[in-house]
């Protein structure tokens, strides 16, 4: 604070700020924070679906059990893999596409922008139907092409093989994630101050040097923003897993998000499911904190 503000003015400012925030807070507190608090409370209970069995307070027992549940641990690892793989890949991929198209004429440029955005708009439910067919073991397009090209001899059961299933899910997730980052990078790149680039070229800087010294710092804010939205996106892969693999084969695509749902509605263990939710929320909060610390530092 550069100058001291009178308490009266500060109070006035606070009141007006909260009036502006009020409508939003009603929804945010009512439908996100409040359920989250309930979730934390329930996680200390042995809550279930049985109408005749009251919930019993069991302290931290659900949490203790979590660390011995190998499916949960597997789900946690898979969730981390999805985030750690998809976030950098989306960033690099969309940066590459953007740098390849941003100097094109308006026509092709907006064509590619729209094309890469299509899977986002089409929606995962519809897109999933087609991908399921493309991955099909018996007559899917991938086996058809790979076999035709002589790269594989025997059909690969993409979604049915624990070795490939998670990668297959991540690929679909990528196609539904890169749309916005590409749009963002295209405009960030076209906003880069060209005189700096030209000056560097005159000084004999290579392509790579130009990129890292001049362009990269200028598109840094965009990159950070993309990191944030891609991370959000990676946690929303529920529909893909529910519609394609139900967490299988052999838990290869089990994620915490799906396992919460499964625990609640297949095993009817609400308290246990909520405990997982709490762990996941903590994990996400830490991840967000790290990202924003990064953002502040640059």
């Amino acid at each position, binding site marked *: 604070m550069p100058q001291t503000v009178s308490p009266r003015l500060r109070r006035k400012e606070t009141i007006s700020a909260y009036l502006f925030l009020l*409508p939003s807070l009603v929804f945010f507190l009512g439908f996100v924070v409040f359920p989250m608090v309930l979730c934390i409370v329930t996680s200390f209970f042995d809550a279930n679906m049985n109408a005749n069995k009251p919930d019993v307070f069991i302290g931290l027992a659900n949490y203790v059990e979590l660390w011995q549940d190998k499916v949960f641990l597997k789900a946690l690892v898979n969730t981390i893999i999805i985030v750690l793989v998809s976030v950098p890949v989306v960033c690099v991929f969309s940066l590459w596409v953007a740098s390849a198209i941003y100097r094109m004429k308006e026509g092709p440029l907006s064509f590619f922008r729209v094309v890469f955005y299509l899977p986002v708009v089409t929606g995962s439910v519809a897109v999933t139907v087609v991908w399921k067919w493309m991955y099909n073991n018996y007559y899917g397009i991938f086996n058809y092409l790979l076999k035709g090209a002589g790269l594989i001899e025997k059909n690969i059961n993409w979604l049915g093989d624990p070795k490939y299933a998670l990668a297959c899910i991540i690929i679909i997730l990528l196609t539904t994630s890169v749309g916005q980052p590409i749009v963002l990078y295209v405009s960030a790149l076209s906003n880069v101050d060209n005189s700096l680039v030209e000056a560097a070229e005159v000084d004999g800087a290579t392509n790579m040097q130009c990129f890292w010294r001049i362009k990269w710092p200028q598109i840094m804010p965009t990159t950070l923003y993309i990191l944030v939205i891609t991370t959000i996106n990676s946690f929303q892969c529920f529909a893909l897993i529910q519609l394609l*693999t139900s967490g*299988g084969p052999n838990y290869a695509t089990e994620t915490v998000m799906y396992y919460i749902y499964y625990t609640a509605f297949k095993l009817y263990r609400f308290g246990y499911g909520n405990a997982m939710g709490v762990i996941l929320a903590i994990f996400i909060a830490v991840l967000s904190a790290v990202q924003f610390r990064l953002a502040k530092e640059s």
Partner: protein
Amino acid sequence: MKKILALVMALCMIFALAACGQSAAPAAPAATEAPAEEAPAEEAAVASSISLWTYPVGGYGSEETVKAITDAFTAETGIEVTVEYLTYADGDDKVNTALTAGQAPDLIMEGPERLVSNWGANGYMVDISDMFDDTDKSEINAAALAACFAPDGAAYEYPLVMTAHCMAVNLNALKEAGADQYVDLESHTWTTEQFAEAVKALYAKFGGTVGAVYCGGQGGDQGTRALVNNYYGGTFTNAEHTAYTWDDAKNIQALKTLYDMEGIDFDAAIVGGDEIANFYNGVFKMAFCWNIAQQLNPNSAGTGEGKTLNGDDIVFMAFPSEDGVANLQGGIWGLGVFDNGDAAKIEAAKTFIKWMCDSEHTPEAVRASNFFAARSAAEGVDLSGVWADNEIMNEYTKLMPMLGDYYQVTTGWAAARTAWWNMLQQVGASDGSEDAIAAAVAEFCGQANAQ
């Protein structure tokens, strides 16, 4: 500042108005509530409207079919029935969320594994044992009757129809492979040995996957269970339905044999519905997820009774067993009542059950399902001739005596089903050694018993 306040107020009002407008919108529940609340004024009143959720039990997935029945019921009794159609893919989740929200329907149509051992055991269903008198008990098929009762004597389902789940083979493919000698078209049965020979011949002729042990989850587990259990005569649960026994050595041996058999593949990427689609389009030569409704309209594609997409003949078969006499998995479907704490609704729901399952309307209700009646007669109406005019149905009755124990009422059934799929997935992903299979079986059978 005042303006902001005014704005906020305006927003709240718009929101409230919109909310009112909308909450009035789902007139179905709202309208049904009103008379229901007045109802308790009269003693033992019958509500004027009820809601029914039905799984796609044969023809009961079709609005046209169901509406004809409920309209007739409404015309006769004055009770309106609002019907919602569930699928096997998300139906359980819908019912479970509705139960969590305290908004379950009044009536539900499915089988004992859900009605009795899941929602009934969890305290959500009304005990309707008072609806079964001695005549009913003598008319209803004994296995079906037993399955509708919980161990404590409460009844949570009133049975309507039943069938035996079986498997199917592509007859043209068998003939082409010179393997039609292994199937008995008269009795629709075969031995394990004949089955193995047929698979071998089909594999030699066509390569690829002859039949798939699908295990992607969701529906159709009855097919894989029956296949594995029948192969060497293993069991799934004990006779008392108190514990899962699928870890017996015979099942492990069966899984090993199936794993090693060329042409039979464990496929975790497909579910029962995909298997049927693959059989229908000729990729698979056998389907393990079959029943009479499938035989009448394969893949629900409406392109001909008992024919694949290419017009090949489909023959339904019992599952192979060592002596050729299979223990088939039954499907028993009927109606149950959710306890919504409203006596008038419960009364109306029972009226509907009686009308459907035990009255002169029962033949109609049975025919709508494409399955067989779960009882011999209903209030003096003989039900044995319901399908007298249908050749395929008549042929199919040959399988009915092979109906085995209905063990889907064992405690923790919902969890056991998923454990079964996970086990098949693990077996499929393993190296196929006896140890690996035994370990998978032991692990998941243990999981099922732990619930």
